[in-house]
């Protein structure tokens, strides 16, 4: 297993040919021949046209393996076992459709019913009162209808202005902000599957975040580092879009192959130079008049990606979690402690120029140094 699996798979071609039905291919039925081939491929190939053809097809030659005849027997029986297993009918794994009960509608209907009931009760109450008044012979003037009642009108007007003002100012503040923005991407790329389940480091793809202003979107060849081999999605959970539609992961990988110009049938003839960029939709947009630098925050400031981007590892479709407003930036700069390397045994040397703070820190005059103390609130730090 450990020897063969680097290059061979049972059910499909990888670096080398698939191993299923090995014994049906000509002389491989004789395990002694397999042993001769596997232990010394170069010598065997010299007098065997079949293996020469394999080298032409796969472009590389098998390296010699230290095996015994017993090992070969065991390997072949293992392969046959896997093939037999795969032919068994797969257990029905179709899950039920995800129940997407819309709570908001239920609550709306309930409150509507309650409101109607309250209205009827109020009417009944006033009718009963009128009847009891009539029975006791008390004279009352006809009640003023509620839509002419000045107190009611004043209250409704007040509520109306308060609500209108609230929504108006909220809309005005939200102008130019994109919290919860969750666009449809050209390929359904699930961060949950990649960064969550498969634990790919954020910086594997977004390596620019460590070195530059931009977190950088990976080019197609970075995707293909893994997807040259991973050409189907079958081991993870079922994927749904935010609108509740089922996603076929294998079809999404095929979209990547289309952009990369990669043919899974002929993996060795792929030319990375012919790949076309995928036009991902940018989610986190800062206005042009704001400067933000990723490396400054994650490398010098040691801020985790999730602090601003939220639980990316749980998101199928990424959404903007933070407000990215100025108040949000400034608030964090007011509250966040700077990791001062005041004892010079380690930590970040970047801050060594703040001599006064280092001294105050040592003397106990300050118990913590915030980002605002080292200029985190200066206008020109971000707007220039």
């Amino acid at each position, binding site marked *: 297993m*450990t020897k063969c699996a680097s290059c061979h798979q049972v059910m499909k071609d990888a670096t080398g040919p698939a191993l299923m039905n090995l014994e049906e291919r000509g002389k491989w039925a004789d395990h002694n021949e397999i042993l001769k081939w596997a232990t010394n491929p170069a010598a065997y190939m010299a007098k065997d046209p079949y293996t020469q053809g394999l080298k032409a097809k796969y472009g590389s030659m098998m390296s010699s393996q230290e095996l015994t005849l017993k090992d070969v027997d*065991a390997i072949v029986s293992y392969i046959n076992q896997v093939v037999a297993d795969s032919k068994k009918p797969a257990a029905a794994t179709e899950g039920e459709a995800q129940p997407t009960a819309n709570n*908001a509608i239920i609550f709306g209907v309930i409150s509507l019913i309650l409101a109607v009931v309250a209205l009827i009760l109020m009417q009944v109450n006033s009718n009963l009162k009128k009847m009891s008044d009539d029975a006791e012979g008390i004279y009352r003037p006809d009640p003023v209808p509620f839509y002419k009642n000045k107190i009611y009108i004043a209250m409704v007007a007040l509520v109306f202005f308060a609500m209108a003002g609230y929504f108006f100012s909220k809309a005005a503040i939200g102008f130019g902000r994109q919290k919860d*923005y969750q666009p449809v991407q050209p390929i359904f790329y699930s961060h949950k599957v990649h960064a969550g389940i498969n634990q790919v*480091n954020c910086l594997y793809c977004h390596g620019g975040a460590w070195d530059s202003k931009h977190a950088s979107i990976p080019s197609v060849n970075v995707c293909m580092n893994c997807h040259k*081999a991973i050409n189907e999605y079958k081991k993870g959970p079922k994927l749904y879009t935010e609108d509740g539609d089922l996603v076929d992961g294998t079809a999404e990988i095929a979209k990547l192959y289309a952009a990369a110009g990669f043919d899974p049938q002929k993996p060795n003839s792929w030319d990375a130079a012919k790949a076309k960029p995928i036009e991902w939709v940018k989610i986190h*947009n800062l206005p042009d*008049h704001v400067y933000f630098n990723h490396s400054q925050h994650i490398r010098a400031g040691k801020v985790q990606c999730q602090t601003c981007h939220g639980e990316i590892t749980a998101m199928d479709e990424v959404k903007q979690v933070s407000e990215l407003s100025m108040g949000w930036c400034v608030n964090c700069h007011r509250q966040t402690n700077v990791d001062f390397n005041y004892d010079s045994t380690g930590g970040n040397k970047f801050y060594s120029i703040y001599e006064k703070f280092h001294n105050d820190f040592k003397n106990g005059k300050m118990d913590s140094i915030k980002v605002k103390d080292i200029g985190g609130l200066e206008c020109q730090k971000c707007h220039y």
Partner: protein
Amino acid sequence: MKKLLIIAGIISTAITVTSCGGVRRDPGRAYMPDMSYSRAYETYASTQALKDANINYNAKPVDGTIARGDMFPYTLKNDSTGYAQSATVTNPLDTATIDKTEAERLYLINCGICHGTKLDGNGPLWKGGDGPFPAAPRNFVGDAVMLKMPEGTMFHSVTYGKNTMGSYASQLSTKQRWMVISYIKAKQAKVAPAAPAADTTAKAKP
């Protein structure tokens, strides 16, 4: 009549309240679009306008360009001759002065995903065969082939890719690639004596 009006009002309010929510698919508007959206070319912006104006633009660096602070580029070609020659290439970095924590960080981000944090070829993408990756990654510390593989050959494979592994030349600079190689070699040196034992156990189970 008046009851009808009230009920209609309540229904319309309920509809307005419930219709808010759902997925936000549009980014909204900005106060001053010319201050929000850059007039200059930003990273990842389309360069189609330049092409339309007949201005030649090529995002690729000129052949032979060396980034500031990087090392002299690797010159061997990506073919079988280059692969064979790579065995004689040695690490140009002084292994004693390499920033070991940085080398480890680079390994864990870029290699550990397949080859494992313990270099045992069992990263989260393989997980003993349960992960999504179809081919077993090489075991750096338990595989005799990897233990005696020259560092130049390793560097060659990292630069151009080998079998199902892709090229890491776009993610790691020449210097960073050598740092990772020296990290792997240092780890291998620690386990080298135990290697033959690990090899026989690997052979026992096919």
